[in-house]
């Protein structure tokens, strides 16, 4: 049965904000995403030159060598504005919270062999620091990037990394029964153990890159494109097969998150590469440069993570990444 509720019809003056209407048509209703991300960033008539970037404006397209006619031609396929983002993450958080509670309540980690626990701690703990560095890189993109679509995305993406570093910390605390020794050892390994140094070195080299889009490629596309499939897919599967299947639950956020990330990074590469041959060449050269460097940097971690075949597994992750990027139009 349907009931007709009589409401007062009021004719509107306009459908849209002007800045949205110019992009989607003035008569087409805007989505919340469109209202929230298009053209918020100042573009002109800046009053004073920044003291921290000689010769540049406060917001400057010249902070990258990538050239776009319109920095708003890429949009996020997930359509994350702030509110949609926190709602999505709150839902995931709820399910992660249940996973952790269940693991704790049923002492699910007790059954994991000690040797495997040591491996998990050795491989996962220093990744807290990788995540933290990844966050810094995304804050940098938010700071120096161009256009409110890409910069707000980087802001949210960086926040996710803080979340992931905290999830890793929670896993280690759960294994260590809330003693801080594992976390402390992880920091020592990160700073000193030889298997982590090539990655830490690469990360610091990424911190000091001038071009924010190169940081985007090196961090969010190449480094994550190697580490996430290798660790949060293959390694966790291996851990699971050896009696640590609880880890699948405890890293669910990370695997879901990476699957989600691929959606926007693919779209970003596709749109930017399609814009011009020059962009395509630049992106391709960055992908080649950083894949080579980071593949070497991740190799000792791959070797330590798997009893055998670590190198092949990394190779597999790399080929998948490159094949995916070729599909988006890169010439590599």
């Amino acid at each position: 049965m349907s009931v007709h509720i009589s409401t007062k019809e009021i004719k509107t003056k306009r459908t849209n904000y002007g800045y949205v209407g110019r992009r989607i048509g003035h008569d087409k209703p805007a989505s919340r995403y469109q209202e929230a991300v298009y053209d918020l960033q100042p573009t002109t008539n800046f009053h004073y030159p920044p003291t921290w970037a000689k010769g540049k404006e406060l917001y400057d397209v010249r902070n990258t060598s990538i050239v776009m006619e319109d920095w708003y031609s890429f949009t996020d396929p997930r359509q994350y504005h702030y509110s949609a983002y926190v709602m999505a993450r709150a839902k995931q958080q709820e399910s992660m919270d249940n996973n952790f509670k269940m693991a704790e309540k049923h002492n699910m980690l007790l059954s994991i062999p000690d040797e495997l626990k040591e491996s998990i701690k050795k491989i996962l703990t220093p990744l807290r620091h990788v995540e933290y560095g990844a966050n810094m890189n995304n804050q940098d993109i938010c700071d120096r990037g161009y256009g409110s679509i890409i910069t707000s995305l980087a802001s949210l993406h960086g926040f996710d990394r803080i979340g992931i570093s905290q999830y890793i910390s929670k896993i280690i605390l759960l294994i260590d029964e809330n003693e801080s020794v594992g976390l402390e050892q992880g920091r020592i390994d990160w700073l000193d153990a030889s298997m982590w140094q090539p990655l830490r070195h690469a990360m610091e080299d990424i911190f000091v890159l001038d071009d924010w889009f190169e940081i985007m490629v090196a961090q969010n596309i190449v480094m994550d494109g190697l580490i996430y499939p290798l660790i949060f897919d293959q390694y966790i599967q291996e851990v699971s097969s050896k009696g640590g299947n609880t880890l699948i639950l405890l890293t669910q956020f990370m695997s879901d998150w990476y699957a989600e990330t691929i959606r926007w990074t693919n779209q970003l590469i596709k749109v930017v590469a399609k814009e011009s041959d020059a962009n395509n060449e630049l992106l391709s050269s960055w992908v080649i440069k950083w894949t080579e460097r980071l593949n070497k940097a991740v190799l000792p971690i791959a070797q330590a993570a798997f009893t055998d075949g670590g190198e092949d597994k990394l190779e597999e992750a790399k080929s998948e990444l490159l094949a995916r990027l070729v599909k988006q139009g890169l010439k590599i």
Partner: protein
Amino acid sequence: MAKKLNMRKRYELLTRGLGWEPTYQPKEKVFPQESYEGIKIVDWDKWEDPFRLTAEAYWKYQAEKDKKLYAIIDSFAQNNGHLNLTNASYINALKIFIQGVSPLEYGAHRGFANLARQFSGEGAQIACQMQSIDELRHVQTQIHTLSHYNKHFTGLHDPFHMHDRVWYLSVPKSYFDDARSAGPFEFMTSISFAFEYILTNLLFVPFMSGAAHNGDMATVTFGFSAQSDESRHMTLGLEIIKFIVEQHEDNLEIVQGWIDKHFWRAYRVLGLVSAMQDYMLPDSPMSWKEAWDIYFVDNCGALFKDLGRYGLRMPKFHEQATAEAEHLSHQIYFTLYQFSHAAAFQTEIPSKEKMDWLSEKYPNTFDKYYRPRWEMYAEMEKQGKRYFNAGLPQLCQVCQVPMCFTEISKGKPLDLSYRLSEYNGDKFHTCTDACKAIFDHEPEKYSHAWLPVHQIFQGNCGGEEISDVLKFYHFNPEDSGEYKGSADDISWRAAHGENNDIEESA
């Protein structure tokens, strides 16, 4: 049996030791902005993140808040909540808000991302990052809240385009550009302390209680929803100041200089708020002067008494701001009234009731100095000569407010106040001793200012005629001018079944 961790300890473990200590790259290359302002930080670990909010907790709380907020925004739109306002003239306050304030929220989002990357201590990084993402929330929820109003009223349609160009919006824009173009510690002192801590109540309370008093449930809900974010930001503002000053004795003088300057810059921005509060709200919860007495004189007086332990004193020129409190809104609204043919809001002579309210709230000044001018304008309007100023105003080189202030602290409230500086052979005009002092301290910086009136005269704003400039601003003809008989007035009356014959009602 695992040992129990309290919240504080747990938070510490989740975040401890994550700050980056580079060894492959020099620290000054990884954090290039940390030292050039002269601020010396000895130990970042002394910075305690005041919020101790994990990412998980943040997602959860913020999602709950947003769920409630958007439910109300949706129902407000569905039920045409705008019809329950006291009067459509109230919307002029919202126009100033979305054109002048929302773009600043976006600027803060980017600015705090800069700090989150450039500070090397993780406590400061994470706190700044939280603020950055909160500011993104604020600009986006403001857009969504006001979206419904934009469908029914004028002047709300292109705020970000306007903010980059329009003359009165260069007041907030130049203030923010001032902070953003400085280094990270000065930005933080300006935005987190001078603006968010000292003056935020003077921005937020008038707008949000103004909304409540005038039936704007959507904006009120947004205001309440933002309040818990704001209180985090205020805490951050106070913490950072104490932290910097405690880190090294050389920091005190630098920070005090920034407080002096940015207090005054931010205060000048609030001049627009004072006019909105006293004149544009059909029903005003409190006057500018009352708000100033409570939130500045009392609260900040107490605050600086407390900060005296750290060697900090009240901002320079605060006496002048207090002396101006009985004049500020009147002088600014007169200016807006005269130039509203070139603004994306409308103005009108205050009603009889409003004038009586102003007399009551400003017993020392309104009847003596300002009522007679309104009566003169009313007389002119009656004769069909509603007064608009045909010229373009001279702007202060620093605050960019038209030169409308008088020599109040010299006891001559009828004499226009202006100051002159010379730099590199050019003359620069400022509105007060305070703005002149700011100019003279950094003449190179302020000589760069993009002054809208100069730009119009130089032909950089769409053309020679005012109509060209308004087109360049993306104004529509119905956005500007006199409120009575404006498009908003007419459609409001029509929606409320009132007679639209202006002649008769005037």
